[in-house]
């Protein structure tokens, strides 16, 4: 029936067909295996990826908690503002990247097109502020100060403003109650960066794209508590962002409130007085430089002596923290961070360090006792102290004869401390130090907490410096190459110093120990360190970690987490020494170097203690230091290039005490006028609805007081026989007060003596 022979399936073909079949089966087997691997073995991971793919989050930002003062007055809270934002993703869809829309928007908002453009550009390595450093997918705020009319214009002509929204939003407000701006303590916020999101991803408080993060001050320190938890609604969406599935919502949890120990009224007065004191100093003539004082910066700390809580902390120059709200403008940013700005963002109370001058002397006093010297002495307060060819002069070459250590504090006698420190230096081996030198003067400094952070609950505190043997060695190792290169034996002053440092900068020299004993040389302290030290002297010897935060209260007021004062050490001295020093410091206020500033003070009711300091800084004018305490408070003020301790800072500190205790100029105590005669004990009440019970603060507490006359101190009669420099006879504060520092002038050349400042 057919002519086709049955030759189609020769053995070769047959084998090859089997090969094909095996190949086919193995290919299909491979597919099946791979399918099993993807779907069964790795399935969970892909399921997760898929859900990440198609879920979009819409974030309702949590309302940030308020920062309250000790009585409940809001230092930082929120207000509702009309925020105009631009969506970059929408803008980039347009042909001109949204330029036309932004220009139109700039017209409506009364801004320049450039300004608007800068706000929406993304930050990167090459783009300077202002720029947006948050997520490019989050609407970028252009202004938070839109008027209802502008908002209406934008919303009614939505088709003209694609990608632009105008919505009411809660934004941070630094209310400055009673003009207490508290800028550096509060800090500021800015949008979270990608890096931070990455870093915090797996912690218990991850960031959301829209989060604002505290960048400095309390806003940063207590960011976690203040921030709350943003609400997230998750929508299932398709590739184009169209919503498919239903929402799953976590409601927003508002942040907790932070109660601080700051009293807005005292804060205002501290800021005001600091500023006034600096203004006043700028009018004063500096004999050394033959010009008026610069008074370029200053700081004051008011601390509760028994707890270390900060009642007021002011730093000058200052700024308006509201500049950061809603994204900072280029101009504001330059003004805050530029070279010409004098860095108002710095909190000089914890980040400014300088030589303490004579307010340091309580430490060598304690050190001398610990080293075995008696308090009573007597020690010779000569007009100068010589080591070899070097002559270290007492202030104004005063000679007080043989006196006790207490008296040496009162009159701020430098030579007594020179001699003691030099003696100890020799005991430790002098230029050939012993193996384990006692280093009493340096050890004691460390025990007072100097050279390290106080542990205040504010970020980026600096440590100051105790210029001990180890530091000298480290510093020399780091700098010797430069010194040896630039140093010249017979060059300029700086070159001679470099030459000397190159040769022997690694060793603690006699001159170093002498300078150090009066808080000069390479010694550096911060105002908060000195406030902590003087508070410890006031409270019987306990060094507390200073705190600004007092309690964290949940938004409904139900949970209160108090921040307890925490001691970090004890002053290294016996009760007896402490009371002797305490007595001497009272003497400073009644008959010593600060007496002319506390004329008429009700010393019996409110015992006042003080120590003045005037520190020399190479190439600059003297730093004014004033450290004081009463039973309850310790106040330390410093003004860089401000003049003498009591001269520049004295009236301001006196005025702060006047306000705290309600003391009038003539020494009367009026309890009704007293702002805070004893520290605030109770916490403000946060009601369950989130509102806060707070007293009213007057418009400006600094103006409520009877205006103190600027030269109040000078008008007070003084009759301290120990202080021959009567302000009455020499009205200029510069020469009226004493206590100083001296940086040893280098011998070299023919100058065998040093000129002394002030």
């Amino acid at each position, binding site marked *: 029936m057919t002519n*086709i022979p*049955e030759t*189609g399936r020769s053995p070769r073909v047959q084998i090859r067909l089997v090969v094909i079949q095996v190949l086919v089966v193995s290919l299909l087997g491979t597919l099946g295996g791979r399918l099993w691997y993807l779907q069964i073995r790795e399935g969970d991971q892909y399921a997760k990826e898929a859900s990440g793919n198609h879920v979009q989050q819409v974030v309702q930002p949590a309302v940030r908690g308020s920062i309250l003062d000790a009585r409940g007055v809001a230092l930082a809270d929120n207000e509702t503002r009309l925020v105009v934002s631009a969506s970059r993703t929408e803008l980039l869809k347009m042909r001109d990247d949204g330029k036309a829309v932004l220009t139109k928007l700039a017209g409506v908002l009364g801004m320049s097109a450039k300004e608007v453009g800068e706000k929406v550009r993304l930050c990167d390595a090459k783009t300077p502020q202002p720029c947006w450093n948050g997520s490019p997918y989050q609407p970028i705020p252009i202004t938070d100060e839109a008027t209802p009319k502008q908002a209406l214009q934008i919303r009614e002509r939505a088709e003209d403003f694609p990608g632009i929204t105008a919505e009411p939003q809660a934004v941070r407000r630094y209310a400055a109650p009673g003009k207490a701006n508290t800028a550096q303590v509060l800090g500021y916020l800015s949008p979270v960066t990608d890096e931070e999101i990455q870093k915090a991803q797996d912690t218990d408080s991850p960031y959301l794209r829209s989060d604002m993060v505290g960048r400095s001050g309390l806003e940063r320190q207590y960011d976690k508590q203040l921030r709350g938890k943003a609400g997230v609604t998750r929508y299932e969406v398709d590739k184009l962002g169209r919503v498919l599935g239903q929402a799953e919502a976590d409601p927003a949890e508002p942040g907790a409130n932070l109660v601080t120990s700051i009293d807005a009224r005292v804060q205002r007065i501290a800021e005001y007085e600091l500023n006034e004191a600096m203004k006043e100093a700028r009018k004063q003539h500096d004999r050394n430089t033959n010009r008026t004082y610069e008074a370029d910066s200053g700081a004051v700390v008011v601390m509760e002596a028994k707890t270390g809580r900060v009642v007021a902390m002011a730093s000058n120059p200052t700024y308006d923290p509201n500049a950061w709200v809603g994204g900072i403008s280029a101009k504001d940013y330059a003004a805050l961070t530029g070279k010409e700005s004098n860095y108002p963002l710095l909190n000089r109370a914890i980040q400014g360090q300088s030589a303490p001058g004579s307010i340091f002397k309580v430490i060598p006093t304690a050190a001398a006792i610990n080293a075995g010297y008696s308090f009573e002495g007597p020690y010779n307060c000569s007009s100068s102290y010589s080591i070899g060819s070097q002559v270290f002069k007492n202030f104004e070459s005063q000679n007080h004869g043989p006196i006790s250590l207490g008296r040496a504090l009162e009159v701020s006698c430098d030579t007594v401390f020179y001699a003691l420190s030099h003696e100890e230096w020799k005991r430790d081996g002098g230029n050939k130090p012993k193996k384990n030198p006692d280093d009493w003067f340096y050890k004691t400094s460390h025990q007072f907490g100097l050279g390290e952070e106080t542990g205040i609950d504010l970020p980026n505190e600096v440590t100051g410096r105790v210029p001990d043997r180890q530091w000298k060695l480290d510093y020399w190792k780091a700098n010797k190459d430069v010194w040896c290169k630039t140093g010249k034996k017979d060059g300029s002053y700086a070159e001679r110093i470099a030459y000397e440092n190159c040769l022997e900068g690694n060793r603690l020299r006699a001159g170093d120990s002498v300078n150090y004993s009066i808080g000069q040389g390479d010694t550096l302290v911060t105002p908060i360190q000195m406030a902590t030290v003087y508070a410890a002297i006031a409270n019987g010897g306990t060094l507390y970690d200073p705190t600004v935060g007092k309690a964290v209260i949940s938004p409904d007021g139900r949970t209160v987490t108090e921040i307890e004062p925490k001691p970090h050490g004890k002053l290294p001295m016996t009760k007896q020494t402490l009371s002797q020093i305490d007595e001497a410091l009272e003497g400073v206020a009644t008959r010593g170097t600060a007496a002319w500033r506390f004329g008429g003070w009700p010393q019996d009711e409110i015992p006042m203690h003080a120590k003045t300091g005037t520190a020399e800084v190479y190439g600059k004018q003297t730093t004014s230091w004033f450290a004081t305490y009463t039973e309850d408070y310790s106040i330390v003020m410093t003004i860089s290039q401000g003049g003498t301790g009591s001269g520049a800072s004295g009236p301001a500190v006196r005025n702060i005490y006047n306000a705290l205790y309600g003391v009038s100029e003539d020494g009367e105590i009026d309890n009704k006028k007293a702002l805070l005669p004893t520290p605030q004990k109770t916490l403000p009440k946060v009601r369950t609805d989130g509102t806060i019970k707070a007293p009213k603060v007057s418009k400006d507490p600094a103006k409520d007081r009877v205006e103190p006359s600027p030269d109040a101190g000078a008008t007070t009669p003084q009759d301290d026989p120990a202080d021959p420099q009567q302000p009455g006879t020499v009205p200029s504060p510069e020469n009226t007060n004493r206590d100083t520092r001296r940086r040893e002038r280098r011998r070299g050349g023919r100058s065998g003596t040093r000129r002394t400042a002030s």
Partner: protein
Amino acid sequence: MTGGVNSFQVSGYGPERAGWTRVLARDSLARRLDWPILLSALALSLLGSLLVWSATRNRTELNQGDPYYFLVRHWLNTGIGLALMVGALWLGHRALRTAVPLLYGASVFLILLVLTPLGSTINGAHSWIKLPGGFSLQPSEFVKITIILGMAMLLAARVDAGDKPYPDHRTVLQALGLAVVPMLIVMLMPDLGSVMVMVVIVLGVLLASGASNRWVFGLLGAGAAGAITVWQVGILDEYQINRFAAFANPELDPAGVGYNTNQARIAIGSGGLTGSGLFHGSQTTGQFVPEQQTDFVFTVAGEELGFVGGALIIGLLGIILWRACRIARDTTDLYGTIVAAGIVAWFAFQTFENIGMTLGIMPVTGLPLPFVSYGGSSMFATWLAVGLLQSIRIQRPMSA
């Protein structure tokens, strides 16, 4: 008994038989058809229609607002495919042997037409001819059949005539020449995927023809050399190079060239054992996988029907391939063997490449999954191939 050229008619119209008796008779057409292939192909086409529907019901930019647009068209394509199968069966593969010159000329003409302005470009491949009514034709699909039939005719002629046990070199050369001409044209489109399928078909055909091993290995070597040349000379478009780059490194640019593979793998991987259920795949409803109704249709199965659905598709294709291998082995004439083996090579490679690329084990090329992917030309060609397979089967000796 062996089937003759006209055995279709002979066995189908026995006058003494009627009704069920006739249908169920030992030598009836119904009894001799390869039902596993037919039913598997049908099942795949129907399953494919559901998957295509799921992938397109939300894609308003494609379905012109009608969610059933692709479902209905897939059915329509399947129906036409079935008719083509019946036609092929009715004509018989041997009758088609005589028509090879005509078919060959027609398909070469069509692919040449693609190169003229009448052709249109879809996804970088200039391989379509637009027809009125929104249809388009991809002639390279039919070229695959033409090559199989043409090569089989040449290679089997003298063997089946009993002159030689195996095709001689001259015949092999002629057969290769016949295949190379359309392949070159397709490469110019450039439709690299189709060329790859054709190379594999040629390989399968040569293997099954019994041609000397030298030819088989020579062709393999030539293929490798050709691939290197193509790469070096730069005939490839950038998108094609990127596809290979993305295959070599799946982490590469997941938002760009690696996007397809990445999204495809996420879709399949997230399906798990039983999938999210038809119409409930988030990757599918969210339209994250491009070309999901055509080249990436397997991802719909993977996501919505899970491992069960994916394995079912592989299994059904496995049945077709297994049975086709059996047909190749069981038929008595070399012509039928070669045709069946060519179809096996074609289906197997296309299946492996298509599913393999969605699983990330093969580079991305634009090849449809037989029966399942949306696309008329592919559907018609594969059903025609089923018709050929059935024709070969019903004409084998019943005793085999």
